[in-house]
């Protein structure tokens, strides 16, 4: 009589099961990417939005803020900041521009990044585009 709980069967299940579920994950991912254009409104990704994403990245904004809930939890959520600031690009640009170089005594403060007007416009356009992604109604309210 052979052993009733064998290493080789456990191994087969590991390899077979993992491959099975990975293939399944790929199938779901394919479906997701096919459905995505309806939700991310990629037709609105202009040159400014692309520049804005780059500005977002090279200044490591994610190191303090969250964007659609991902990032650091040190500073406010920015996925809906365009709406929170009254659908105003100017308000976003004005806020970024007005950060004091030496911070605010005793309090958290965003650094002064000395962005050009073009970069400021880009980041605002990027945040506007982000606020229009269909995120299944997240965040729960305007405060993010």
């Amino acid at each position, binding site marked *: 009589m052979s052993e009733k*709980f064998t290493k080789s069967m456990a191994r087969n299940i590991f390899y077979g099961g*993992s491959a099975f579920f990975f293939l399944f994950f790929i199938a779901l*991912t394919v479906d997701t990417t096919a459905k995505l254009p309806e939700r991310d409104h990629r037709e609105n990704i202009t040159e400014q939005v692309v520049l804005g994403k780059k500005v977002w990245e090279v*200044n*490591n904004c*994610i190191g303090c803020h969250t964007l659609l809930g991902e990032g650091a939890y040190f500073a*406010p*959520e920015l996925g809906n900041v365009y709406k929170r600031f009254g659908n105003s690009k100017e308000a976003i640009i004005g806020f970024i521009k007005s950060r004091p170089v030496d911070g605010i005594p005793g309090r958290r403060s965003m650094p002064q990044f000395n962005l050009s007007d073009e970069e400021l416009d880009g980041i605002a356009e990027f945040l506007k585009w982000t606020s229009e*992604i269909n995120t299944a109604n997240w965040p729960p309210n305007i405060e993010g």
Partner: protein
Amino acid sequence: MQYQSQAVAKPYFIAAIGLFVGQIVFGAILGLQYVMGDFLFPEIPFNVARMVHTNLLIVWLLFGFMGAAYYMVPEETETELYSPKLALILFWVFLAAGVLTIIGYLAVPYATLAQITGNDLLPTMGREFLEQPTITKIGIVIVALGMLFNISMTVLKGRKTAIIMVLLLGLWGLAIFFLFSFYNPENLVLDKIFWWWVVHLWVEGVWELILGSILAFVLIKMTGVDREIIEKWLYVIIAMALISGIIGTGHHYFWIGTPEYWQWWGSIFSAIEPIPFFMMVIFAFNMVNKRKRDHPNKAAMLWAMGTPVMAFLGAGVWGFMHTLAPVNYYTHGTQITAAHGHMAFYGAYVMIVLAIISYAMPLLRGRAAGNSKKAQIVEMWSFWLMTVSMVFITLFLTGAGILQVWLQRINENPMGFMEVQDKIAIFYWMREVAGVIFLIGLIVYVTSFFIGGDEEEASS
């Protein structure tokens, strides 16, 4: 130490511990910045300190994994390493790349770093945990491929045990999924989807294979239980981990613009993610009960037993707490996530690396089986200091998170983010105190390496 070439693991372990200290120092700085917003501003703004904190964590864990691989592979395959020299060269390359990157973070503004490292040619920077300059990323790939070549060649010429095959698969997966960090589309939603292919499929996928194989190795060595039994359960546990964990990626696809069916797929599969961790706890304690010898290295045993318990609490329980979509709707991107992240990383990955270091280091230093009683007692003190303070860090962050969710998201008159941060400052203060105790625990840990005394004899 049975094989000469295992010695290359030693510098890897030492570097890991050194970078670990750096990580915790920056953790303490971050904790203070949470309550004293202008601390070190503008010299080291929060985003820079955080980047250093998280990147050091990843890099030192990778050092730990590599050291573990170089230590385990010769012993398991019963043959010397294919090229110890290559392992040492790669060590210095990786260390130099890591240190230079950290210096780069601290010395110049991030935008300048992006510019001088040519981020424009292949933009990959500025995404959470993947902040490294593109050239550093390329360096990581080269080091990983070099190591994989080295140990794969060793495995090919030696005995192929289940433990080593699982470890190899985990390391290959680590390298392959890292390649997604080079994919940075202009579309943020696509960017986020495949960013998780690195982050999630690492920590809730292939890293668990590495974790499982190291734990199995240490358990075989320390308990003397039959290899067949341990390897059998290793397969069962990692099978469960991947079955639940791969589609469990869906719990990150709830609110980033992905279709809404992920709320079901993600919830259902991540609901079973605690099971493999629970099985790991049962498994580890069962093996210890069945032990055929009492290994003199009690400290290593403590780390090895602590790993599944803390991993189950941090990854399993704290993960499950906010993984279901209706709950996550309110907790997503709050301090709850931070709480879970801290305990899960500590429990699963920090502790397993410390376990293998604790087991292997005395042998690498030419001791018979374990450090002296005195040194072990100090090390066990550090275990309890770090573990208990991590539990408190997690509890305080959870308290902060619950209050944050309530004030900012559920309340009828929701408060703004910064206002809420002021309200929950007390939790951040307590977290900082716990963090300092963690740092003290780490200092005690480092001290334990410098305590001499009569070493323990190998058991019969």
